[in-house]
């Protein structure tokens, strides 16, 4: 029987979290020894020697009270700042991160690469390259947890959440669902395969491809006849989608929203939630007609619609990418 006592460290976050652990354990051992030591010493030194002893009362010491409030508080503020620093890093995926889409359902993980590879309960990634996951759930809340990477992110129905990591060591690592999701919760597990970049390329080209996400999205776009209204030149009854992703969009009520993944998803499933200024609420809902994977493919297709240079698509260059990074920087939170 094996008895490992410490998890593998296989991402850039893992040493950060481990070092924080050492600090936390250090502070804890210090206080535990201090308190236990004092209790043992006092209990033995001042043990009751006769039944009618009456020790002198000692009521309080302001200096002591302040000391043992302020010193521990200072030490906890280090814990706070250190943990917050790691958390900030974990919530800001780098711009050049490799994108993977994750759809969770009872009780499996469906993972899609941009190039079209689909995986179930397995994810192959290259080491040394940041990987960003954009995730949603088809039913209950799940949670994407890779202990060797020290990362965990809930996967919530009705919204996108993101997480990212950079694997540092080739190997096979546990993927767990960490949020209780029903009968086979403990069966909702899988493996992350971190591979050397050349091995990853070989795996990519060796696997069966289902067409890239954007290509599949284009097919779906045609099947659903989205183009009847969303004409590329802006002449349709609905806004053009060219150059839309990442742009700031003015709504009928005067607000501006950033066209991120969450906005696109909502506009497909609940088109009347946000109406673009100058347009009528004509679009029917596609709730129930498009799967979560389908929505992701449509989003990738819309992302791929980049305006040709110097072509007039009704937007000025200044409007494009008004707010770069925001869509991807924080988990969707509405």
């Amino acid at each position, binding site marked *: 029987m094996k008895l490992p006592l410490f998890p593998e460290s296989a991402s850039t976050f893992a040493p950060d979290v481990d070092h924080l652990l050492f600090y936390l354990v250090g502070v804890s051992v210090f206080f535990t020894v201090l308190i236990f030591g004092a209790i043992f010493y006092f209990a033995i030194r001042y043990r009751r020697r006769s039944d009618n002893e009456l020790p002198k009362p*000692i009521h309080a010491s302001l200096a002591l009270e302040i000391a043992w409030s302020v010193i521990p508080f200072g030490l906890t503020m280090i814990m706070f700042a250190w943990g917050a620093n790691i958390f900030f890093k974990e919530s800001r995926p780098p711009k050049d991160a490799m994108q993977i889409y994750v759809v969770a359902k009872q009780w499996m993980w469906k993972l899609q690469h941009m190039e079209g590879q689909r995986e179930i309960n397995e994810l192959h990634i290259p080491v040394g390259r940041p990987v960003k996951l954009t995730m949603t759930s088809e039913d209950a809340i799940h949670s994407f947890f890779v202990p060797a990477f020290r990362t965990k992110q809930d996967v919530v*129905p009705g919204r996108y959440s993101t997480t990212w990591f950079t694997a540092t060591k080739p190997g096979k690592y546990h993927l767990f669902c960490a949020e209780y999701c029903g009968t086979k919760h403990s069966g909702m597990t899988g493996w992350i395969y971190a591979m050397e970049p050349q091995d990853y390329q070989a795996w990519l080209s060796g696997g069966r491809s289902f067409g890239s996400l954007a290509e599949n999205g284009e097919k779906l776009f045609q099947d659903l006849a989205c183009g009847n209204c969303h004409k590329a030149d802006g002449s349709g009854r609905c806004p053009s989608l060219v150059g839309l992703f990442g742009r700031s969009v003015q709504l009928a009520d005067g607000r501006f929203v950033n066209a991120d993944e969450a906005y696109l998803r909502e506009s497909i499933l609940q088109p009347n939630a946000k109406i673009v200024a100058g347009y009528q609420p004509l679009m029917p809902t596609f709730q129930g007609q498009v799967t979560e994977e389908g929505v992701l493919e449509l989003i990738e297709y819309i992302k791929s619609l980049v305006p040709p240079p110097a072509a007039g698509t009704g937007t000025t260059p200044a409007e494009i990418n008004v707010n770069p990074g925001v869509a991807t920087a924080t988990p969707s939170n509405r």
Partner: protein
Amino acid sequence: MNTAAIETQENYLNAGYGLKSWLLTKDHKRIAILYLITITIFFFIGGIFASLIRIELLTPQGNLVSSETYNKLFTMHGIAMIFFFLIPSIPATLGNFFLPMMIGARDLAFPRINLLSWYLLVIGGAFAIFAMLAGGVDTGWTFYTPYSTTYSNSWVIATALGIFVSGFSSILTGLNFIVTVHRMRAPGMTWFRLPLFVWANYATAVIQVLGTPVVAVTLVLVFCERVFHIGIFDPNLGGDPVLFQHMFWFYSHPAVYIMVLPAMGVISEIISVFSRKPIFGYHVVAFSSMAIAVIGFLVWGHHLFVSTQSVYAGLVFSFLSYFVAIPSAVKVFNWTATLYKGSISFATPMLYAFGFIGLFTIGGLTGLFVASLGFDVHVTDTYFVVAHFHYIMVGGTIMAFLGGLHYWWPKITGRMYPENWAKLSAAIIFVGFNLTFFPQFILGYMGMPRRYHNYPDEFQVLHVLSTAGASILAIGYLFPMVYFMWSLRYGAVAGANPWGATGLEWTMQSPPPVHNFDEIPVVTHEVYDYSTVVKEGVEVG
């Protein structure tokens, strides 16, 4: 005093013998006994579930019960233990029995409401037991949506209704305590002459009254969505699943302080009596209870660091969580300082108090771990969290409950428990507890998720250690059950004040008379003034 005297002397126990004299009693002491019996039953129900969970986890394959059954076991373990044992535990039994006596009152402010609150717990408990017998519930004690409202095929509504009803028991107890402490203190019993157990129960009562209605509302909303499909939490119905977590933890985090504040109150009493000194920093310890009650309402979001809550909300909740840690730490330092130059007795209640400080210190320190954002991302929803909250709730609350029960047992029953058996079982419980839950910290950091029916092989050795510890712990819990029963008939007669303690409850006979005080006492001494009960060179007792 001899055995014959205790039986002829009129007291609350021999004031009436019929079932009716118990079920319709308005005496806070008898109601406390009714509570004690009720929560002991739930403790053993929850304990049986825990035993089955630990036996199942001996092997990684999950081959004792089905996944469905396993999920119901940990759900019902949590529900029985939290809502029907830990939350009522100390306030409704020891608090009910001693709070009026400690402030020099003949009963609580509203004796009928006190009885009603026991009936509400029993009715709520009956719903929960019905749900368990009918097939059980599998949502986890946390009822996370949309699983609980849309996907679970189990007895969610009956269980939620049980918790809803029992919540009113908690609210009414809290209300009763607040009014009693404000209005019924004896002459001379100023706020700063209140024993710290009273302060702790007062702070707890504030949380009960302010927090419990929120969980009641939340459960009603779960009911509306599950039964009438009104979209509140399920995104398919237009709801927000994370909203549930905010509402649930707005109550359920302060609920941790409902469980642990009264425990801290018990420990303050025990430490003082068995070192025969006033608690060092009495005012600080009293106000720290109130600080915990208030700040405890501002930290709920630390349960949601990976839930898609905003990064900035996470930051604020992490920061505030460290504020609530300080008053708890300060209590531990003050208890330790109280021992300095004291007269330390190693009677059983003091052993439990030492055990409490040890386990609560570890539970509290690991609370600092999980309040740290980057650390919590890794360990949330793992066994690390399971270990952490068991150190607080079992290592903290149950140790204090047992300590308090031993401390006040002579007053409640008029009899002493067998000291050596009690010391032995305290030691068994301490060892068993640590062996059960310490390995779970390591399991959690290794990445073992909680609520897993089967698990990868590499976690097995630590799970086996944990189960071995749980077996020892279970035996430790059975001992007091047996010797307490034995002591009712065969225990030595206790007398009014066997410990040389200072509280007003020790000035009356054991067991106390029906109306506590023939004459309402006038308090002239400061709290924990041992010169009033112990005279150098004069026998105590």
